[in-house]
């Protein structure tokens, strides 16, 4: 399988990439790590007539943390992010989720921004962004704008990026020291796309009450879904067993999966219920035992 013919252009910075996107219009696509786009092209499921390579850019490869946030440049390789101490201590959910994202060889090349812009509803990084209420910074011809994660992902492989906009970076709120995190994922093989994934971050205050609960599910709707109702039920409580089980039921009520070859909609609903409960309990254990 070979890709259909296309013109190859290389951009030296994000501004040049935006110019090229504007010049070529809808027929152009950004090429970052190539781990999603190139297979789609090889299968001829995508046929862009121009690829704009951003691997030679230097203004989108950074990992920065301040008091409140972690900012990750779109061209940061997933494997670099996975191993980065700053990122791991600010947002421990990131390395935990990346461990499920493809294989190490894919993560060596695959980029943070590439996975977000590709917007597979079962992919790990979009689910992390949605779970934690991240924000994406995009650049177009007339400047930058910031989009909350829940407004960025619109449908499978569809984002709110305009044809001449490029994803520059994403910003995630720093999790309080000691936050417990957990990724529960059901996949045929480790590294495959999730049939259902649930990501949770939980922080208990000194009285044992949850002052932070973040939960999202992937693979069960047309985009990753933040489980607001379950979060609301659990926030401020001691996260007892009955509460967790009830929140897990509420979580399953708030997603709309469809049948496909990997599993029926009803199976996915049941798995959301099971995995939400499991993820919350494991995240609590993670906080209590401390991060290893």
């Amino acid at each position: 399988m070979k890709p259909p013919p296309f013109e190859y252009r290389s951009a030296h910075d994000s501004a040049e990439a935006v110019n090229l996107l504007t010049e070529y219009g809808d027929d152009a696509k950004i090429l970052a790590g190539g781990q999603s786009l190139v297979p789609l092209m090889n299968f001829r499921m995508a046929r862009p007539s121009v690829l704009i390579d951003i691997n030679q850019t230097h203004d989108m490869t950074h990992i920065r943390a301040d008091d409140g946030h972690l900012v990750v440049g779109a061209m940061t390789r997933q494997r670099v992010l996975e191993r980065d101490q700053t990122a791991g201590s600010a947002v421990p959910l990131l390395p935990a989720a990346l461990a499920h994202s493809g294989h190490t060889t894919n993560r060596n090349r695959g980029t943070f921004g590439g996975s977000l812009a590709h917007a597979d509803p079962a992919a790990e990084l979009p689910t992390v962004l949605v779970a934690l209420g991240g924000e994406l910074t995009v650049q177009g011809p007339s400047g930058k704008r910031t989009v909350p994660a829940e407004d960025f992902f619109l449908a499978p492989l569809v984002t709110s990026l305009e044809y001449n906009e490029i994803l520059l970076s994403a910003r995630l709120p720093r999790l309080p020291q000691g936050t417990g995190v957990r990724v529960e994922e059901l996949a045929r093989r480790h590294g495959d796309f999730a049939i259902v994934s649930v990501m949770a971050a939980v922080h208990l205050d000194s009285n044992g009450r949850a002052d932070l609960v973040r939960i999202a599910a992937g693979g069960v709707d047309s985009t990753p879904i933040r489980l607001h109702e379950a979060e609301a039920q659990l926030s401020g409580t001691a996260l007892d067993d009955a509460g967790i089980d009830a929140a897990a039921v509420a979580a399953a009520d708030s997603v709309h999966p469809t049948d496909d070859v990997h599993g029926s909609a009803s199976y996915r609903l049941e798995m959301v219920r099971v995995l939400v409960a499991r993820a919350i309990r494991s995240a609590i254990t993670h906080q209590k035992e401390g991060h290893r």
Partner: protein
Amino acid sequence: MRLNLTINGAQHTADDVWPGESLLYVLRERLGLAGSKNACEQGECGSCTVYLDGVPACSCLVAAGQAAGHEVVTVEGIGGGEDELHPVQEAFVDAGAVQCGFCTPGLIVAAHNLVERTGEPSDEEIREELAGNLCRCTGYEKILDAVRLAASRKQEAGT
């Protein structure tokens, strides 16, 4: 385009290259380096694994234009010379980890990276690191044996 890149330490040039063709295609069809194997062309099987700037990557997913000016090490560059096997390759032979051999070149690169980078990897680390390499003959146990053998020999040799 004229493609210049470094492969296994030597400067290589290929002419009339379409920048959109894969690095794997360049290696195999233009430069006669047929060690890296072509199978899935979707980053699933790892049989095309090469080092790109020191990091293992699926060469089927790298466009030729992206490799221009970069440094590639293929399975041909892992051993010392013509008949000289690298200890990781020797371990594959000794452990009987090669059946049809189709997956072997990619696995050698992945295993080489693992063994060179870590001291004595745990079974979990080995599985994790080699999860992107499929063996159609399913000789995984022997492959694990080979990596363990290579790692323990390296420890013994103290290198």
